[in-house]
Structures are given as structure tokens and as C-alpha cells.
């Protein structure tokens, strides 16, 4: 999508779009002066208002092609939802121009406008009319809506009796009935059970096949990679990248990893301080002391965020205050819910270090950190062969694992898939 030749196929175009919000302190929404100025000057007059400002979008220029599916990624507060609302016409940009061709349906909050006292049937009509359908159109599609939501048995009960999943399903079913040219979706794939999610994805594929433009905001990067052709990465309201979905998601993940690593580094320092001051779960007689615990990646740099399958090293710096015979060094990795993912020590692996005195470092080199995505806590210890603890640090250190694969469990077992076509017993 480049050059003037592609112009007729542009469904959405934004030129230097910025959106400013004013932040208020306390509950008072506005002052008489503000209101007066707003009435006199209208929407213009930047800088006239008091109060802090927040630029939710800053100079965003984008062209999105018709029939493409575009994912928007970014951390919380990066302007994703604001962008979606600007595209949907719900918010007006403070500066810049937005043009969207065709009928837009925004799935920003499903079931907005549902009245709890009314039945599902009544709400389908009310919500449908709000979204711009005529009563005749709704009547014609009513059965499809209810069937899609899977709510045939509940359609005449008040929606206040619905579970949140049912509520969302009905909202989604109505919103996709609008038959838009441009569909804006905010984080809705996360609703409903597996079966309904599959139906949603099916519906989205259907829209794609029909040549409709879809913009999807989601934190589920897997589904963005899977479903979208392109992705847009926003950070602090600014456009960071726009291009092929996998590539943009990759760049975004790298950025997140750097940020998280920095944050975890801070956390780790705090845990170390706790260990030094003797607070937290630390016990032992300290004939041998663990003076520093660090983790590093394959490049040898200290960090606490790894990708599944990465190389990782645990460094235990010790100081023996008197010569100690055969101390045992151990490492345990726990999930936050307390499940031990892996634990080992030098004794169970039949290693002996002989007499230890003074300072030194023990390293445990993990060739492949095959844990699934999650946050983990670490126990480290040095103790005597009979189990007498010299220095035990329980859950004082943390690290995180990120993965692009949404597998579950504790560890990723090394595996390979294969499909063999044809009959099983060699006909």
C-alpha cells in the first residue's frame, strides 16, 4: 500500500491526528470559566483551558487499505482505544484529519446501552436501533442474532439475569449484524468460552473474506499475529511502527522485554536488599553466606526476563566465614502459586566441592530454560550435607519468562509434530 495508485483502496486514512484530553484533579468536572470559554470559542482555542493535559494521540498518520485486517498493539495507556474511538467517530481529534470510507461498526464495549430490566429480545431491538439498524432489519435477523449468541432459551429473560459472558455474546451478535464496511474491535475476543471465541474468529474470517476492513485492538499478540495482515504499534500516543503483523509484534515484544527487564532489575535489587537486611524469608547459621544472587542470559548480561528455551545462568556468590567441609548449593524454581517447577542441588547430583573457605561464586548454567510463560520465584540455599542450613533464601528472587506460543502447563517439553497422510496400516 504505497503511492497514489493505491489510493482508491484506502479505507481509513489519518493525517497528523492528535487527541488531547484534559485531566482533572478531584471530582469537579469543570469550572464556569472553562464552560464559558468552550461555549464562546467552540472546540478550538487550545491552551485556553486550565488543568493538566494528556496527549492520548500525537501526530498519527496512517493509511489502512480496504479489506485488510489491522491489529493495534501497545501497552496500557498507549492510545489504542482512543485511536479506535477516533476512527469510530465517537471522539473528534483535537487536530488533524480522519477519513473512514463506508459504514463503521465499533465493537468498543459490547452491550453498551443494554437495559438490565429488559429482556434479551427487547434489548436486541434497542441496541440494534442504536447501532443504526431499522426495526425491520432487526426483525429479519433476530433469529440469527439469538442463535449466534446461543441464547435461544434466555431471550425472554431480563438481561440482568444474564452472566457476563451471555451479555457479551449478545452484544457481539448484535454488533456484527450491522454488516459494516469497517469493523472496529476492542479486546472482545477475550469474552465468552472457547466455543464462542471460535465463532467470533469464524465471523471475523467471514468479514475478511467479504473484503471488509477490520481494526483489532488486543493484548493477545498471538491472535494479532494469527489473524492480522498488518499491525500498528503505538507508544505514548505516537506511532512507533506500522507494517507486517509478525514484524511489528516482534519489535513491540522486544521493546516490552527491554522495559520489563529494567523493571525486574529494580525488583531484584529490592529483593537483594531484603536479603541483606535479614528481612523476608531468609534463615540459617551463616557459616557460609550467600552474598549475591544474580541471573544472566546467554550473552552474560544480568537480566530477569527470558524467552522460553533461552540459555540462563544463576550466579551464587558466597562467603565462608570459616572453612566448611562439602557445602551443598541448591536452586529451586517456583511458580507464584507455590508449585515447584524444578529443584536441584549439588548433593543430589553427586557433586562435591571439598573444603570451602573465603569468597567465591557458584554458577548453575541452564542450557534451555524450557518453562512456559509466567512469573517465577527462586529459592537459593547453601547447607551442610546433613541438611543443616547455613543460608537459605526463600522466594527472595523473581524472574519472568515470556513466550510467543500460548502453551500451558509448567514446562515446554521438547517436541515435534508430524502428520502422516494416508491409511494407518500400510495398504
Amino acid at each position, binding site marked *: 500500500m504505497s503511492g497514489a495508485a493505491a489510493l482508491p483502496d484506502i479505507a481509513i486514512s489519518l493525517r497528523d491526528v492528535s487527541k488531547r*484530553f484534559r485531566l482533572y484533579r478531584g471530582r469537579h*468536572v*469543570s*469550572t*464556569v470559566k*472553562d*464552560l464559558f470559554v*468552550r*461555549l464562546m470559542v*467552540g*472546540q478550538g482555542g487550545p491552551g485556553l483551558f486550565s488543568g493538566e493535559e494528556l496527549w492520548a494521540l500525537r501526530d498519527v498518520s496512517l493509511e489502512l487499505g480496504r479489506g485488510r485486517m489491522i491489529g493495534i498493539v501497545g501497552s496500557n495507556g498507549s492510545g489504542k482505544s482512543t485511536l479506535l*474511538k477516533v476512527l*469510530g*467517530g*465517537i*471522539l*473528534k481529534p483535537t487536530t488533524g484529519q480522519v477519513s473512514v470510507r463506508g459504514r*463503521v461498526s*465499533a465493537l*468498543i*464495549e459490547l452491550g*453498551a*446501552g443494554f*437495559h438490565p*430490566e*429488559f429482556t434479551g429480545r*427487547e434489548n436486541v*431491538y*434497542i441496541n440494534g*436501533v*442504536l*447501532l*443504526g439498524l*431499522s*426495526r425491520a432489519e432487526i426483525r429479519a435477523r433476530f433469529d440469527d442474532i439469538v442463535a449466534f449468541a446461543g441464547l435461544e432459551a434466555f431471550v425472554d429473560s431480563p438481561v440482568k439475569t444474564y452472566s457476563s459472558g451471555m451479555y457479551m455474546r449478545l452484544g457481539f451478535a448484535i454488533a456484527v449484524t450491522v454488516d459494516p464496511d469497517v469493523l472496529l474491535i476492542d479486546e472482545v475476543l477475550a469474552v465468552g468460552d472457547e466455543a464462542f471465541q471460535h465463532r467470533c474468529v469464524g465471523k471475523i474470517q467471514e468479514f475478511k473474506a467479504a473484503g471488509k476492513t477490520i481494526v483489532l485492538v488486543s493484548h493477545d499478540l498471538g491472535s494479532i499475529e494469527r489473524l492480522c495482515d498488518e499491525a500498528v504499534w503505538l507508544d505514548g500516543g505516537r506511532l512507533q511502527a506500522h507494517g507486517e503483523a509478525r514484524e511489528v509484534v516482534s519489535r513491540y515484544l522486544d521493546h516490552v522485554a527491554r522495559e520489563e527487564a529494567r523493571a525486574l532489575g529494580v525488583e531484584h535489587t529490592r529483593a537483594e536488599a531484603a536479603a541483606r537486611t535479614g528481612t523476608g524469608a531468609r534463615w540459617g547459621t551463616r557459616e557460609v553466606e550467600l552474598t549475591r544472587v544474580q541471573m544472566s542470559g546467554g550473552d552474560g548480561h544480568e537480566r530477569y526476563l527470558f524467552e522460553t528455551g533461552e540459555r540462563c545462568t544463576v550466579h551464587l556468590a558466597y562467603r565462608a566465614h570459616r572453612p566448611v567441609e562439602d557445602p551443598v548449593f541448591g536452586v529451586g524454581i517456583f511458580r507464584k502459586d507455590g508449585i515447584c517447577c524444578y529443584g536441584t542441588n549439588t548433593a543430589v547430583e553427586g557433586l562435591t566441592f571439598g573444603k570451602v573457605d573465603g569468597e567465591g561464586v557458584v554458577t548453575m548454567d541452564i542450557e534451555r530454560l524450557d518453562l512456559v510463560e509466567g512469573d517465577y520465584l527462586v529459592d537459593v540455599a547453601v547447607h551442610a550435607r546433613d541438611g543443616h542450613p547455613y543460608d537459605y533464601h526463600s522466594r527472595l528472587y523473581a524472574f519472568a519468562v515470556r513466550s510467543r506460543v500460548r502453551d500451558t502447563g509448567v514446562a515446554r517439553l521438547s517436541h515435534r509434530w508430524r502428520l502422516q497422510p494416508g491409511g494407518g496400516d500400510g495398504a
Partner: protein
Amino acid sequence: MAGHFADLYRSRALLATLVLRELRARYRGSFLGFLWSFLNPLLLMLVYALVFSIYLRVPMQGYAVFLFSGLLPWLWFSSSLGHAAGVIVGSGALVKRILFPAEVLPVVSVLANLINMLLSLPLLFGFLIVFGIRPHGVLLFLPILIVLQLLLTTGLALALAALNVHLRDVEQILTNGLTLLFFLSPILYPVSTVPTTLHLGSTMEVPLRPLYFLNPIAGLVQSYQNIFFFGREPHWIHLGTVSVCAVLALLGGWWVFDRLRDSLAEEV
């Protein structure tokens, strides 16, 4: 302004749906349900009639019916504005998440309360007949009065709904304003009890009546009483005042609403 009405006309399906939702939601879940729309004004009328006709002994034949014929249009006016002022703030979920013309919300408030009043009219006619007051040809003025009041109320409702989003004090100011306006309009008493002039000391004379009718609601309420209770034509001068006020209110209301429209989704 013609454009605004054209927009509203295009949204008529939405208006109809929301008015119906409003009316049905109001009494949903209550045992007496829709009967409340008759019971509310009826009870109010009975209390006022008791206080003014029996305790304070207002010397007037058929005071209760007189009262009722002014009370119904007043209740339409005051409940419309009271509801409209909070309607955009209260529908935050809609305004923030769905692209739809927000001006329908205050208009729905006015229309829903109009329908409530229309449904109470048979009750009024019943009372009139019981009190021996025959329906008179001047009742043909009723549609005109209703249209004028509809325009006046809609204009005010639009302005209040949008202003209240920015300044929540509007609802409070309105509550007080409506109470004042209620007593400054000839609902509890006939206009004939209002002196034409007010003597301040021995030299100063204030023309009270003309000042009294600067309030368009006074002329409007009196017109309703004229056609329902007294069997007289409304004063043309009152109809003129109300018409001028209605046009001004509409122009002002749309102006305010248009000015604030784009900010509603942010500020709600």
C-alpha cells in the same frame, strides 16, 4: 434549525425506540406499573386541593379541577427538564461507546413525559365532566399549546443536558429554579388573584401583572386553564410570548448543544 429537525426526523426510529424504552423502564418492576403515571399527579393534586381548598379555604368553585388542568402541563415541563438535565451524564455508557446522535437523549426525555401527560388527559376530562364542566370548542387550541410547549421544553432540555455534562451544578440550579417557577406560575392560584399593580410606599407603583407574565410558563399555564377549565380562548399576547420564547429557547438550545457536542464523549 431546519437541519436539526431533519436530523431528528431521520433518527425517528431511534427516538421511538428510546421513548418506548423510557416509558417501559420507568415502572418496570413496580407492582402498580404504569398506573403510577396517573397516580403521581393524582396524589399531588389531592394534597394540594386539601391544603388550599380546605385548610387555606381558597374561595373557588371546582378548585381541584382548576388545579389539575394547570398541574398536568407543569409536570410535563418540570419532569422533562429534570430528567433531561441528567440524561447525557446518566447515559455515559452510550455516549462514550456508540456513535449516535446524542441530542436524541434530551428529546426523548421531553417526548416520554409528553406521552405521560397525554395519557393523563382522559383523567382530567373525567374530572371536568364530574364537576359539570363541558368540553368546549376552545379545546381546539390544545394542539397549539402542546406544540409550543414541546418546542420551548425541547430547547431548554437540549441546553441543560449538554451544560450539565460540563457543570454538574446545573442539575442543582435547575431543581431550585423549577421550585421557584412553580410558585411564580398560576398553578395553585388563579391569575385573577395577582394584583395588577403593586404599591410600594405612597409614591411608587410597580406594574406587577406585566412583570408576572414575563415568565412564559405563566402565560402557558393560564392558556391551558382557559381552554380546559374556563372555556375561554387563550390570550393572544400569551401565545405570542410563549412562541417567541419557544423559538429563542430552541435556537439557544441547539447553539449550546452544537458547541458542546464534540466534547460530550470526553467529559461524561
